[in-house]
């Protein structure tokens, strides 16, 4: 099973499911991380975390801990 954490900078993936739990779940989805969304990983912060992605044509940053809970397929 591929998660967003495994996606390399420059690659684009499609969200299959959001496993983030608690209140953060709604937050992530409201920001556009929902089933079917296209996400391009842009870069990783200098210290290795968090990551920056392009989703719905804007730039969003979150940590690998959450990226690991976003199931994707490469497009």
């Amino acid at each position, binding site marked *: 099973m591929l998660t967003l954490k495994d996606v390399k900078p420059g690659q684009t993936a499609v969200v299959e499911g959001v496993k983030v739990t608690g209140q953060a*779940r709604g937050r992530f989805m409201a*920001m556009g991380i929902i089933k079917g969304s296209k996400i391009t990983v842009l*870069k990783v912060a200098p*210290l290795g*975390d*968090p990551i920056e992605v392009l*989703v719905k044509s*804007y730039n969003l*940053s979150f940590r690998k801990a959450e990226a690991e809970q976003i199931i994707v397929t490469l497009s």
Partner: protein
Amino acid sequence: MSVITVALTGNPNTGKSTIFNALTGARQHIGNWPGVTVDKKVGHMTKGSQQITVIDLPGTYSLSAYSIEEKIVKDYLVKEKPDMVVNVVDASNLERNLYLTVQLLELGIPAVVNLNMMDEAKAKGHHINLDVLRKNLGVPVISSVATSKKGLHQLINSIDHHVVNKQIKSPLLVEHLSNIEAIKNSNKDHDTIEEEIIESRYNFINKVLSDALVIQQGVTSWQDKLDNIITHRLLGFPIFIAVLYAIFEITFTWVGQPISDFLDGFIGGTLTDWTAGALLAAGAAEWLQSLVIDGIIAGVGAVLVFVPLIFTLFLLISFLDGTGYMARVAFIMDRAMRRIGLSGKSILPMLVGFGCTVPAIMGARALDSERDRKITILIAPFMSCGARLPVYALFAVLFFPGQESKVILSLYLLGIVIAIAMGLIFKSTILKGESEPFLMELPPYRIPTLRTVLIQTWEKGKGFLVKAGTIIFSMSVVIWLLSSYNFSGPAEINESILATIGKIIGPIFTLHGFGSWEAGVAVITGILAKEAVVSTLGVLYGVAEVAEEAVVAATQLQGTIGATFTSLSAYAFMVFVLLYTPCMAVIGTFKKELGSWKWTIFAAAYPFVLAWLISLIIYQGGLLLGFGS
């Protein structure tokens, strides 16, 4: 004359505040929402004979009550029912921005959608058909470029609830509403329902945009190139340090210091002399002259000299904030800050604390988790602020000649270590809880308008002037009273009530090696302002006017202080000054930012206890190790 209420909603970074400022101009005021410290901005405008009250709601991405801001916006719209909503939308970021718009349409409040930043959308290759968008959403859609005031006239014309009340729901919206009705009535669990509703909203947005938005591919922007440098793996940190250095250099050396010196000279010299002359000419009683000169002007003046520094710092921070750089700093620093239990967004307030604790605490507003904000506020005072430097400098010159910078550096580092330790302790005790995930938009780089930067600077700085100012004024009067009188009447300072208090306070430092009444009084006046520690010692040890330069002051105080302190007790005293209760200006800010007296008292009191303990450990430990001589 009729009055209508218009609420401004929108995502953060959409230019909402610029539009608010342009619409209401000087006719605006800021308070807090009941019970929380989030700004409540209210402004007024006139259109013909119509009075319009504009409420600038906090910027939010949704109405789902995930944060205080979202809860405020939702409660306001549902309970206060404004006559209409102007939804400010970033035209270059339509898909996500319309999410909030959909939620507004679901609530059924009359709305006008204002597509702002049309210039940026064009530059990004986004072509928007406004007529189609109007038809699909079923509400008036206006385009604007708020920074150059384009389109604001149409926006003002659209603010009319009679027109808006005639809004009919578009077929697409009707379909969406029946969709979410069906989802809500299904027997699925809460999480699934929430997920399906969010998906349904984005589906609706896709349909709305399918024939209204054309994105031209392959438009690469200077933005990406700039961002690759600013968040570069190797260059990112040096750039950050350079920016930081520039902020401090500009604030404290270029702008702040000369102005502060000027004010210092003006208040301590010209103003004092002139007031003294005027009071004498008016035949004022001696006590009144002393109250005004030694109490009010000296006390309030000591704090007023910080005003230029604070405003300069705020100006630079507001500017950087508007450029989008701050979000990048949080991005590159998050990993390091998380080690100490905070988020990348806490780095800035902590660093500002080396300049002055007041803006540091106010800067913590940028944090979205209440818990991170509280922890940051509680530990920021341990970053040695500029006002503590004179104390360190004086004692380092007196007791550690040749070792000054090492001694002073050790104090700065001790402050950082204590801040980290206390952060970790708070995180696992009184402010326990799940740490919130880091989810942050990295907004496009922009050059903020001068107007927005100035308004923000004033909004932040005014609080310091007003709130802290009133407390300092009353404290100055109280300290003056205590130092000029005893219970039988006017008295010399060493016979005064202040001295009596010093004699009561002093002994609690007996085990610290500085249990004299003079040190006790200096500790008390240090709460008024940290640099008062030096001037108080000067007065008490009989040096009329302690020079500002540490070296000169040191020679003046050589004989007297040298007799009461040893190098070990001097170090213990410096550590105490570093850690104990911050100054009155900070305590005033605590009240403003923490919101409750309970937290304010805690934030002011625990550092005293901590300082007492650590200073004790250093003195007694030093004695054991044989540093006592």
